[in-house]
Every structure is written in C-alpha cells, then in structure tokens.
C-alpha cells in the first residue's frame, strides 16, 4: 500500500472553557490516500469540522491539539512553527468552507484574491493568466471578464466555484471540504459536488469531505468515517458502511436515509440526542442512546478495530472496515445478535 | 437622589416576591456584580459620593455659602501638609477663602442634583415622545423622529449651550443664582431625550401589536391609559441602562457649561464652577484649587460610567 497523503493518528483536540475543558475530538485516527475521497459524517458537534481545522492548522485558542499526530506524506505537521504551517496551507493542503457567500472578501475582485493566492505560493509571472484558466476550469463562463467582478456580482453556486478555484490555485495535495454545499440551493449542490470530484480526480488530490448529507457521501466518497461525540464510530469503504453498517449509531444513521427502494413508511429515528462535549458518559459515548447495550459499554471505551471474523464473513465485509463497538470485538461471546 | 445605586438596581430588577432577599442573591445580575471587583469599587465610590453630597450640611466643616464664616484673609491657603497650610483647611481654600473640602461637598451636591434631574427630565420627555410616536405611528411618528434626527446631528453640548442662551434671554431679570439650576436642568433634559425616544418607540411598535394591547383597546380603554398602564411597563427596561450611562454624560455637560461660565455662578459653585475658578489660579501655582474638584469630578464620572457599562452588559449580554 502506498504512503497515505494525510495520516491522522490518535488526534485529540481540547477547548479550554470557563466550565472546564471540553474535549472536541478524542483518539481520532484515519488515513487518506492520493485521489481518494474520505467522507466524514455525523451530527453537528460530532467533531467533523474540528478534525478538518486541526489538519489544516487553524485551531485557534482556546482550542489546542492536546495529543496525537498529523502527518502529511509521512512528515509530522501538527508541531510545525506557525510560519512553516502557513506556507503549507494553500500550497499542500487547502480548505473549502461551508458558506460561499461569506468566504470571499467583499472588497476585492475575485481576480485580486486569486492572484494573491497564486503569487503567495507559486513563483509565476503570468498569475493573471493562471487565474483566468482556473476560473474557466471551475466552470465560470467568460472568465476573462468575470475575473474583475466582485464577489457580490456572482450567484451562490458561482461563488462556491470561485472558492474551489481559490482552494485549488496552488495545486494542493489535499483538500478539506467542510460542508461545501450546505449553504447552496439543492439544484446546484450536485453540480458543485460533481465539479469538486472531477477536479480532484484529475489532479489526484485527496479530499476529506465533511458533511451530514449521507446522500452526498454515498455518491462521492470512496470511504466514509462516521463520527459521534468527537470519536470515530465506524470507518470503511463507503458501500460497505452504507450497506452493512455495524455500529448501532451508524445503523440508525443509515436507516435515516430515505431511498426510493425502501418500503418503509417512516424513517428510523435515533432516540435522544448527542451528549454535551463537557459531559460525555463513561465507556462508549453512545451508550445512553444504544438499544443493544451490554455492561461493558458503560465501563470501557471501545477502540475502532476490524470486527471478529465470524461477523465479517456473515456480513461479507471488505477489508479496512473498522468499528468501535464492543458487540463486534473478537473473542467476545455473548456479543452476538 | 436619582443616581441608581446597585441596591436600587437590584431592587428594580428583582422586585416582587416574598423572598426578595433570596431572589436577589440568586439573580444573575447580583452574581455578575459580585464577580467584578471594579464594579463593586465603582459602586462604593458612587455610594460614598452621593452620601457625602446628601450629608454635606452635616459633615462639611464649614458652610461655604455663609458669608459670616468665610474670610478673605483665608484666601488661597494651600493644603494642610504643604508649607503655609492651615490645620482648619485639609485641602486648602479657594480664592475667596472658602474651605475647599466643604466647597467640593456642596459642589458635588449641585452637580449630582443638576445631572440627575436633567437625566430624569430627558427620560420623561423621551419616554413620552417615544410612546406617542410608537403607539400612534403615521404623521405624529414622522414629525417626532425627524426632529430627533435633526437634533442628533448636533452634539449635546452645543444644544445645551443654545438652549441655555435662549432660556437666559427669556428669563431676563431673574438673578443667575435662582435661574441657573432650572436652566441647566432644562438644557440637559432637552439635549439628551433622543436616545430614550428612539429606544421606547422601537419597543412600543413591537408591543402595540400584541394581544394584550388589542384586548385593552377592545375594552375601550383610552389611549393614554393603555400607553401608561399596559405598554410602558413592558418597554421601560432598557431605560435604566440609558439613564445610568447618560448620568455620567449629564454630569460632564453640567460641569462643562459651568466651566464655560454659562452654568452655575461662583457664588453657588458646582464642581465645574470650582474648576473654572481654579483654572484662573493655575499659573500662580495654586494647584490645589483646580486639582481636587477636578479629581472629584473625574472619579465620579469614571465610577458612574463603569456602573453603566456593567449594567448594560449584565442586563443584556448580547450587547457586548
């Protein structure tokens, strides 16, 4: 297996607050390879965006990386000096934010913003020409004219295209896309996702796609990580996780996707809500809401591991499908259904 | 005294209920008060100054307005600890031989009286116009708010000066000693009403569409009764904050007018008048005449402003 582009190892991020420290993510690990799209799903506050911000080095006080490592091409980047990290941002790793309406500086033309980004990272003399070709690539009509336009002169979808052009302007190896379509009209969401996927496949860019839209994940991602209360509950190839979710939370989540085939009249609902991050229960964070609770769940925290061979065989699981749940731990009897 | 001491504030916020004391103790506003040492210090300063002003007649060593106790021979005596100081006058005397400490206590009384009354008058005018504008809307509203807009283009001090000039012209023949305080109160009242009016008008427009106002109208209550009995209690909240913040401004305005010579006369000095007197003797080295009244004024206004800032944040954390 080739070396992953980005490797997150046991990452922990804390926020120091007035009422004590809040653990936003804890013991999060995953790899993303060249050209791969890792979808990250979960409820608000599950730690999806924090993970993305941590990788790109934009966790701001009172938040801090309290443990673990982030590696880019095998090199640690979580302990770099701010200026070194700054040079990596945009050049090697980039990020796209949720709201294209507020992601662009309203007082500068899109051309000015593109040219500045290009010149910051690449020593290119015709930066303008590159900016125009980038705008063309992301599907802005008449890019040589629109380059002098201000952000407010573009529609929401067009602005997100500009944002994608900005993120790709220095050919980064890895992009964090933090809910890139949530703020857009449903009609343009699919176009933007398709565009992002196409551009990244062409360039071999690795993508971490943060979203709470399982439909987007199913269509776009190669692998998916399900996060719950700051931890990875389940991770694996996307079809595997969608078709054969193991973690009770993931099962609930997949059950909540409406499909044309499903005969069910009503959608499955997971009772209760995610715990406050200041008040995560002992053991498995999901235990208060879990319908298949066993004693261990209140005591020990499960690690994400490959499930026991019997389960794997029965469910026809693929390799690399890991789940953090005591029910699937090998050599544990009584955990069977 | 119109100065809202923290006790009054708490009382207003947590009024009603049998266990008032416990409700006060548990209220957010009390907790935020206890959490801020600077606010507690400011409150203590305001309380001490208000008490000093109220009790001036009893705690001041001399009555600076009684010609029988003031001697020109005592003029411009430096503070006690300085060469040439006199044990009778702790912080020295002014150019007419008045004990400066006593004069400051009496001056404080005048400053607080004028500032407080001025702010109250402004609140009454502003609340009335705001209620009327918000409740009736239409042309009445347009006229009142246009006047407010025009007035807002001019700084309060300029308005106060103009009003002072006009009222003086209208009150010709009345001695300055008698006219000064009412003229100042009117000037300040007419200079500061706009903020109240705008705030009250905004919330009145929201309230007047609610069911209880419609119900009151259906019963046939006359408009003034609905406005005063039903709408006013629901929109009065923010006024307290504006009142406190404006009190500092009003005290400054009074002091400035007196300093400029259109406020209180030297025979009936406020802090501003005392500073104006002291300013004349700055070059001859009599530093104390200006320093102590100036310090008193600065500390008073700073303390009131700190209280106002705290009150604003405590009552409406969103405003921060």
């Amino acid at each position: 297996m080739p070396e992953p582009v980005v490797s997150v190892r046991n990452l922990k991020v804390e926020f120091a607050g007035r009422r004590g420290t809040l653990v936003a993510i804890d013991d999060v690990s995953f790899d993303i390879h060249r050209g791969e799209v890792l979808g990250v799903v979960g409820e608000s506050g599950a730690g999806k965006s924090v993970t993305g911000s941590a990788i790109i080095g934009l966790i701001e006080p009172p938040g801090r990386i309290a443990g673990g490592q982030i590696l880019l091409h095998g090199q640690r980047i979580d302990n770099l000096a701010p200026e070194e990290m700054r040079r990596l941002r945009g050049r090697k790793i980039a990020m796209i934010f949720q709201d294209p309406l507020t992601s662009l500086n309203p007082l500068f033309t899109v051309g000015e913003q593109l040219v500045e980004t290009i010149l910051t990272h690449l020593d290119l003399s015709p930066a303008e020409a590159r900016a125009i070709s980038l705008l063309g690539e992301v599907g802005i009509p008449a890019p040589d004219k629109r380059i002098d336009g201000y952000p407010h002169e573009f529609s929401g979808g067009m602005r997100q295209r500009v944002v994608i052009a900005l993120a790709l302007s220095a050919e980064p190896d890895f992009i964090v896309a933090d809910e890139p379509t949530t703020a857009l009209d449903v009609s343009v969401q699919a176009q933007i996702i398709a565009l992002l996927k196409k551009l990244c496949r062409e360039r071999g860019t690795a993508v971490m796609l943060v979203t709470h839209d399982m439909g987007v994940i199913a269509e776009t991602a190669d692998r998916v990580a399900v996060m719950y209360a700051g931890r990875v509950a389940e991770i694996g190839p996307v079809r595997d996780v969608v078709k054969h979710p193991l973690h009770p939370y993931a099962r609930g989540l997949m059950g909540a996707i409406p499909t044309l085939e499903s005969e069910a009249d009503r959608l499955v609902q997971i009772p209760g809500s995610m715990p406050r991050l200041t008040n995560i229960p002992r053991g498995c964070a999901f235990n208060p809401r879990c319908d298949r609770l066993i004693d261990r769940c209140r005591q020990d925290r499960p690690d994400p591991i490959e499930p026991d061979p019997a389960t794997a065989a029965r469910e026809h699981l693929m390799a690399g499908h890991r789940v953090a749940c005591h029910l699937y731990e090998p050599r544990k009897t009584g955990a069977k259904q | 005294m119109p100065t809202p001491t923290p006790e009054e504030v708490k009382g207003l916020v947590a009024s009603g209920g049998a266990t008032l004391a416990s409700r006060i103790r548990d209220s957010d506003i009390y907790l935020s008060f206890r959490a801020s040492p600077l606010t507690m210090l400011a409150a203590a300063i305001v309380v001490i100054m208000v008490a000093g002003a109220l009790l001036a007649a009893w705690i001041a060593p001399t009555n600076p307005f009684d010609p029988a106790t003031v001697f020109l021979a005592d003029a411009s005596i430096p503070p006690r600890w300085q060469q040439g100081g006199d044990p009778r006058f702790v912080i020295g005397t002014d150019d007419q031989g008045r004990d400066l400490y006593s004069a400051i206590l009496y001056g404080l009384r005048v400053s607080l009286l004028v500032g407080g009354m001025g702010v109250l008058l402004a609140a009454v005018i502003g609340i009335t116009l705001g209620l009327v504008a918000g409740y009736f809307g239409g042309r009445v509203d347009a006229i009142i708010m246009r006047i407010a807009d025009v007035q807002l283009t001019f700084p309060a001090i300029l308005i106060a000066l103009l009003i002072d000039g006009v009222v003086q012209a209208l009150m010709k023949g009345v001695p300055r000693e008698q006219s000064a305080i009412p003229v100042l109160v009117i000037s300040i009242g007419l200079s500061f009403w706009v903020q109240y009016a705008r705030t009250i008008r905004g919330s009145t427009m929201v309230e007047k569409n609610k069911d209880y106002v419609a119900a009151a109208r259906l019963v046939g209550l006359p408009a003034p009764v609905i406005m005063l009995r039903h709408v006013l209690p629901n929109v009065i909240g923010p006024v307290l904050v504006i009142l406190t913040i404006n009190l500092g401004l009003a005290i400054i305005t009074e002091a400035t007018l007196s300093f400029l010579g259109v406020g209180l006369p030297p025979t009936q000095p406020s802090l501003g008048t005392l500073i104006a007197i002291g300013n004349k003797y700055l070059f001859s080295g009599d530093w104390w005449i200006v320093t102590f009244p100036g310090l008193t004024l600065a500390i008073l206004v700073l303390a009131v402003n700190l209280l106002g800032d705290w009150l604003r944040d405590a009552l409406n954390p969103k405003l921060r």
Partner: protein
Amino acid sequence: MLAFILRRIAQSLLVMVTVALIAFVMFRFVGDPVNQMVGVDTPQAEVARLRESLGLNDSTIVQFGRFLWNALHFEFGTSYQFRLPVTQLLGERAPATLELALVASLFALIVGVVMGVYCALRPNGILARLFQAISLVGVSLPTFLIGILLIYVFAVTLGWLPSNGRGQVVKLGRWWTTGFFTASGLRALILPAITLGLFQMTLIMRLVRAEMMEVMRTDYVKFARARGIRTRSIHFRHALKNTLIPVITIAGLQLGSIIAFAIITETVFNWPGMGLLFLKAVQNVDIPIMAAYLMLIGLLFVTINLIVDLAYGLVDPRLRVAMRS
C-alpha cells in the same frame, strides 16, 4: 447613482431648512431685535421706522423667506455686542477653528486607528490593556479637564509648550490666516489639538478595535488563512480595508462634532476661533451670532454627512450597485 445623490441632497436641504427655521425663530422671537439696536432714549417714531425698514411688520412667512434668502448670501445681520456684521466676525475667526479641527481630526484618526488595530491584533498584550484603560479614562474625563491637565503639565510645570493663543500667524490671501508656517504657530497647535482630538481618538480606537476583531472572525479571513495568505497581508490588506469602511463614516461625522466641541477647547486655550466667539454670544445673548453659528454648524454637518455617504459608495463595491439601482 444620480437619483441617489439627488435624494440625499434633497434630504440635506430639508434638514437645513429645519435648522434655519430654528435659527429664525431664535433670531426673531427671542429678544426683540429692535430693542437690541436702539438706545433707551430713541424716539418711538424712530423705533417704528426701524421696525418697518427691517421688515419686522411683514408676515412671518415673508420674514422667514427673507431670512433664508439672506442666509443663502451669508447675510446674518449685525452682532449686538460688536456692532459689526456677523459674517465678518465669523469669517475672521473661521481659519483658527478649522485649522485646529483639522489637526485634531488627523491626530484622532491616525493615533486612534493605530491603537485600535494594535488592540485588535494583540488583545491580551500589556500595551493593549493600557490603551483600553486610557480609552476608558479618555471617555470619562471632560474635555476641559484634559486641557487643564495638559496645560498644567506641559505649560506650567515643564514650560515646553504655550498654553494660549495661536502663536504667530501668517496671512494667506485676503481672508485666511494660518499658524502652519511658523514655529510658534505649530507649537501653539499641539496642546489644543490633543485636547480636542482625545475624545474622538478614544472613540475611533474603540470602534476600530471592535470592528477589526469582528472582521478577524469572519469566514473570508478564515478562508484567506486557510489559503496560506501571509499574515501581514491578512491583517493590513484584507482585514484593515473591511475595518476602515465603517470607521470612515464615524470619523467623517466626528469632524463636525470636533468643530462644535472646539468651543470648549478654545475657551481653555484662549484660542481665537469661532467657538470662543459663539460662547461670548451665548453669555451676552447675542442672538445673530448664535443663529449664524447654528446655521454654520448645521451646514457643516449636512455637508459632511453627504460627502461621507457618497465616499462610502466609492469604497464599498456592494453599495455602488445599490446606488445604481
């Protein structure tokens, strides 16, 4: 765009007419102008003739029309105190006030912006806390007290700077006198300008600090950082430009209040400007000067408001569109 400008001008004119109405009411009904002009022994016939010649027997509307017409020609009558045309009195003193206000505004703007930016970028630094404390004191101390304090320290105790007057002035053209070209004129400007500008400076500092901290939290600043844009460029290109737009408005509007606040500063420093003249007018109930000064300040405010609104549109591309439509 044109429609927007025309609408703004119409609004400004309306405000000016209102101010003129107030000035007229003051001029006409507060203290009889004729009584001010005649002596005790002037015969009744003479008074009546004067009244007729001044047009005081015409209808109020006609009189207001005449007042407006005269005001348009900068004709505000004769000062009761000085027996000189008001326009001439104000004109002679205008340069002193305007130069003082200009220097005070520049001081307030430059120092206020620098301090505000610093406080926004290093909110927990010792210097930032010091600036914050200074701003609180600056807002609480009355202008005249600051002036007295500065005089006591720099003029009386240290003897470094003059405490009153404009120093030596040079005549420029027929009307203008300036203190900008002599050493004593410049030295005389320092203390009054600081006194006058200090309040606005703290205001601008607080505003810049709050605005800039707000801007630093916006998505576009976050996105700029995510693109690896240099910190200096983020602070001083991206964030500062967005910060300064609301500051332009406030600072522009403050120029008007600086001129009005000059009344106090001019009194403390015995500065021979319009403010001092106005104060003497208030003390002596010299209505023509008061009315004229009111109109002048009103005109200044309205003009500045108009310019600020139009300038706003030039800086902010979003508003340029709004104005066109």
